[in-house]
């Protein structure tokens, strides 16, 4: 309940924040703090410095940028969940944000913070993967873009370098439809995902032209279900095609057992939710 000592800075600008990170290799970025603070309170993680980016202006909007929408680093889960722009271009991410945490957490925690935390059972990473999001990372040396598929590296590990801040994500306007569904740890949609899947589908002339299918809670990180995507792209999107795609949900995935499910159960749920997410995504496509 009582964190170890640390230094705290709350920079007024992004440059100041990046300077602080560059100068302090033991520093950690905090936006909403919903993931970081509990770890610090339980003394499971004790950074030497916290760089609170909460006071940096200009990062708290979801904006329309012609060919993509941009979600800033300080956009709260609740904003993502209720944004008309996100609903239109990345419904799966909006649903994932709506299923994240609880009301208070959704009002304070940030979408980018959740992505950067890279919890294996978090909802929004799956939504971002399905949306084909691009992560924008900034450091003192400049900005770089990271594809969502390359962003989630391992359990609680993203592709961000210690001196980088995830300043926002970009979601391409690619049409189609998307959806996210999961089984929560308390059942229904509540709490972290025992297993969940997000899917984005674009059809053309009765054929699935393109699709992205992502899993969370199943493996060592949120990830694309390559087998399912391969099966589904180019198919007719029929019930049989959905079943065939779902069957390959965990192809190449190391399924992790935890308190909430055995390997077999999680693999099964991955198939169930790939199917359910695909059905819903198709209905919206």
């Amino acid at each position, binding site marked *: 309940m*009582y964190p170890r*000592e640390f230094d*705290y800075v709350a920079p007024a600008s992004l440059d100041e924040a990046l300077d602080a990170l560059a100068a302090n290799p033991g520093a950690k970025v905090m936006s909403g*703090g919903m993931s970081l603070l*509990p770890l610090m309170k339980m003394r499971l993680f004790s950074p030497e410095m916290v760089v*609170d980016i909460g006071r940096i202006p200009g990062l708290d909007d979801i904006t329309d940028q012609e060919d993509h929408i941009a979600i800033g680093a300080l956009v709260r889960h609740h904003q993502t969940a209720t944004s008309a722009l996100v609903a239109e271009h990345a419904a799966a991410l909006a649903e994932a944000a709506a299923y994240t945490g*609880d*009301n208070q957490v959704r*009002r*304070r925690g940030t979408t980018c913070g959740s992505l950067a935390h890279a919890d294996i059972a978090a909802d929004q990473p799956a939504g971002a993967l399905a949306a084909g999001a691009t992560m924008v990372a900034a450091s003192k040396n400049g900005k770089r873009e990271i594809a969502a598929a390359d962003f989630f590296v391992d359990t609680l590990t993203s592709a961000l370098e210690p001196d980088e801040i995830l300043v926002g994500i970009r979601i391409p306007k690619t049409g189609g439809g998307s959806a996210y569904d999961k089984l929560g740890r308390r059942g229904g949609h509540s709490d972290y995902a025992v297993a969940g899947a997000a899917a984005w589908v674009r059809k053309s002339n009765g054929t699935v032209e393109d699709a992205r299918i992502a899993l969370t809670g199943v493996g060592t990180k949120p990830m694309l279900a390559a087998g399912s995507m391969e099966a589904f792209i180019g198919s007719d999107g029929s019930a049989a095609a959905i079943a065939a795609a779902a069957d390959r949900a965990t192809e190449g995935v190391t399924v992790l057992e935890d308190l909430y499910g055995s390997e077999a159960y999680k693999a099964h749920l991955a198939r169930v939710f790939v199917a359910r997410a695909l059905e819903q995504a198709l209905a919206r496509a």
Partner: protein
Amino acid sequence: MTVNGKAVSGSVEPRTLLVHFLREDLLLTGTHVGCESGYCGACTIHLDGVPTKSCMVLAAQADGCDVTTIEGLAKNGDLHPVQEGFWERHGLQCGFCTPGMIMSAAGILAENGSPTEAEIRHGLEGNLCRCTGYHNIVRAVEYAAAKMRGEEPAPPEWETDLV
């Protein structure tokens, strides 16, 4: 920061949680601590008007912010309709989760004056109560919602109301 309408200041270690600043420095002990993981919600306050778990915020993060705690919810001695609802509909037993529960419920009703039972229940998922089974908490919030709409609340479920 401003707490319950009054400017307050204090010097704390960076690691001091807002809830501890409120409880130990300002002696506003109505905001309770029930866990460290951020699941129980007993420490819920309004931070710039938004229901927030004050054990999930550093005191330093709230610098310059407007904080309302349970002690500041009643205005001029008049109970907030949610407080009244909890009393009228037996929305509390041991009362430990109650301040956080009330602050959460007030936040829900500030945005949605006519929530359904499902919306109330979903909205309160960040506040754990071990006593009431939430049944009468839901009735309390429904009571408050009706009051805030200027309507007569539904009568209580019990048969013999003496007062």
